[in-house]
């Protein structure tokens, strides 16, 4: 959730003018000394902290991918062996495939749901209802994915769960949700989308609010009504938001862990095992830290490639005003 994708605008406002003013204001010697070291004192906690806990680990992670190490014995250099083994490992392969299927289905559902509901909420509606719906759709985001998965596991219980009871009312026989591969995958996707679509919803609400009302007035003068209005006006004007929302949704979905871990532990079989789950298992259950790092490096490369591809595609399909 903390991945921002856009670069900030307006770096350092009017540097020339500021400089001139600084020359005029002659501070005391103490102030001038302070001016020199203060920036570094302010930056130190963040820069040192990030160096130790982010940059160093990135380098270490890449290096570790070329070693075999179980923490207990000394690490041995194995070249690309870890990558070769990981790529051939059936569990790793299935997990990456699962992750891709998960990302495609969950992100499509999440964005579709979020966009549809955002359009409905933003159109003419009593103010108090709009506030209610917005809060309701946002609400799951404040819960922990672990807690959500705990109660969802009960709701999807085959015999006693509320979901199957609801389906039985419509005449659908009990679905073996958590005991079959397809059922489990469906539950993981549904629970994930249930909790996360509110984030895309918020982004779409912001995007819709920035479309000028005059555009719609012009469109209705030209005879566009109902869904045609949204197809020809809303969607093109919303495309920058859609790009940001889909990049963030995909990056987050690629890292899914909490829901499948609590709901299914990756089963039955390997049917709901995800990429991050195999990183976790090979590192902290089988103590194959080199292999875990190799999988991590592959996942990071995939994330970077998808991000780059989306921004390249955006040049062709995104309509900027």
């Amino acid at each position, binding site marked *: 959730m*903390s*991945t*921002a*994708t*856009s670069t*900030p605008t307006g770096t350092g*406002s009017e540097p020339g003018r*500021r400089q001139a003013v*600084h020359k005029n204001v002659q*501070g005391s010697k103490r102030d001038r000394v302070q001016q020199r070291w203060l920036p*570094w004192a*302010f*930056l130190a*906690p*963040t820069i040192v902290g990030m160096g130790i*806990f*982010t*940059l*160093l*680990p*990135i380098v*270490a*992670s890449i290096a*570790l991918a070329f070693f075999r190490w179980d*923490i207990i014995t000394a690490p041995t250099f194995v070249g690309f062996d870890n990558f070769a083994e990981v790529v051939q490992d059936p569990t790793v392969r299935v997990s990456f495939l699962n992750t891709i299927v998960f990302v495609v289905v969950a992100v499509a559902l999440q964005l579709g749901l979020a966009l549809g*509901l955002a359009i*409905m*909420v933003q159109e*003419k509606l009593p103010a108090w209802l709009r506030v*209610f*719906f917005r*809060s*309701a*759709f*946002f*609400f799951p*985001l*404040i*819960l*922990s994915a*672990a*807690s959500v998965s*705990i*109660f969802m596991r*009960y709701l999807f219980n085959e015999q*006693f769960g509320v979901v199957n*009871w609801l389906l039985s009312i419509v005449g659908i026989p009990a679905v073996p949700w958590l005991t079959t591969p397809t059922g489990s995958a469906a539950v993981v996707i549904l629970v994930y989308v*249930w909790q996360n679509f509110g984030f895309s919803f*918020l*982004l779409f609400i*912001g*995007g819709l609010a920035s479309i000028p009302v005059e555009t719609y007035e012009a469109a209705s003068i030209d005879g566009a009504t109902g869904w045609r209005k949204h197809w020809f006006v809303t969607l093109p004007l919303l495309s920058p938001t859609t790009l*940001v929302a889909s990049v963030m949704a995909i990056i987050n979905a690629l*890292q899914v862990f909490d829901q499948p871990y609590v709901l299914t532990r990756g089963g039955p079989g390997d049917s709901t095992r995800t990429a*991050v789950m195999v990183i*976790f298992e090979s590192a902290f259950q089988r103590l194959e830290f080199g292999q*875990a*790092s190799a999988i991590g490096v592959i*996942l*990071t490369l995939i994330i970077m490639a998808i991000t780059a591809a989306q921004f390249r595609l955006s040049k062709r399909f995104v309509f900027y005003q």
Partner: protein
Amino acid sequence: MTTIQERVTTTAPVVKRKKRDWSVAIRVVVLLIASVFILGPVLWTLSTSLRPPSESFQLPPAFLPLNPDLTSYEQVFKQLNIVALVVNSALVTGLIAVGQMITAALAGYAFAHLRFKGKGALFSIVLATMMVPAQVTIVPVFMLIRGVGLSDTLLALIIPAIPTAFGTFLMRQYFMGLPGELAEAAAIDGASPWRTFRSVYAPLAMPGLAIVGILAFNFHWNEFFRPLIMTISEQNFTLPLGLVSLQGNLGTGSISVVLAGVVLSMIPALVVFMFGQRALQDGLTAGTGK
């Protein structure tokens, strides 16, 4: 709002207005159904936790427990050291939030209003670290923590989470929204650069800091992945971890006990939701260009 409505009623023929009302009604119904699907599971969790454990799987589900039964809440205190879990979660979350607010305010201010060599390059590095998924750095971080003898402690969760790229980015944006003339005026009044930050800019940046704090709270109170890796003994578990292990330990007979724990763990998040929803929404969507 009212002016638009008035214009519609005066210019549009009566028939058209009726049609519009229909479309509003349909939209409200669809949105209500969606809300039921979103809020229903949470209400079921609440109501089931308030009924005797033996009625956990009652169908059709009763959403309104007319005579609340607190057996499950008594049980969750007996079966789980929930006080320790709450204390751990509060300590971890609170210290991370305060730590992030302080470090992000300092670094954000430096990037926004102070002059030093390599500012642009350094800020790009900070932004780039946001793209690296935490799962990739977790193995070396775990080894580092283990190397300095902090494994299976709360500090293992707190210290690595304090430097925050996103918080720094947010605070930089916030400080840049405050005019640079304030620093010039303070300098003319004889304030040192530190004094300028402490007495002029920092107080004005409180709303931005609140966003950083609330985001940190929301994320780390609910965090599962890092505690799962960094803590081993139950006395160091945080709430989400404790609840998941409780679900694993108890059979299906004690669902309402687990759910009582889930409800208790939601209370602080609910408080944030009620009082800080706006700040949370602003923070989550910050940096997305909107």
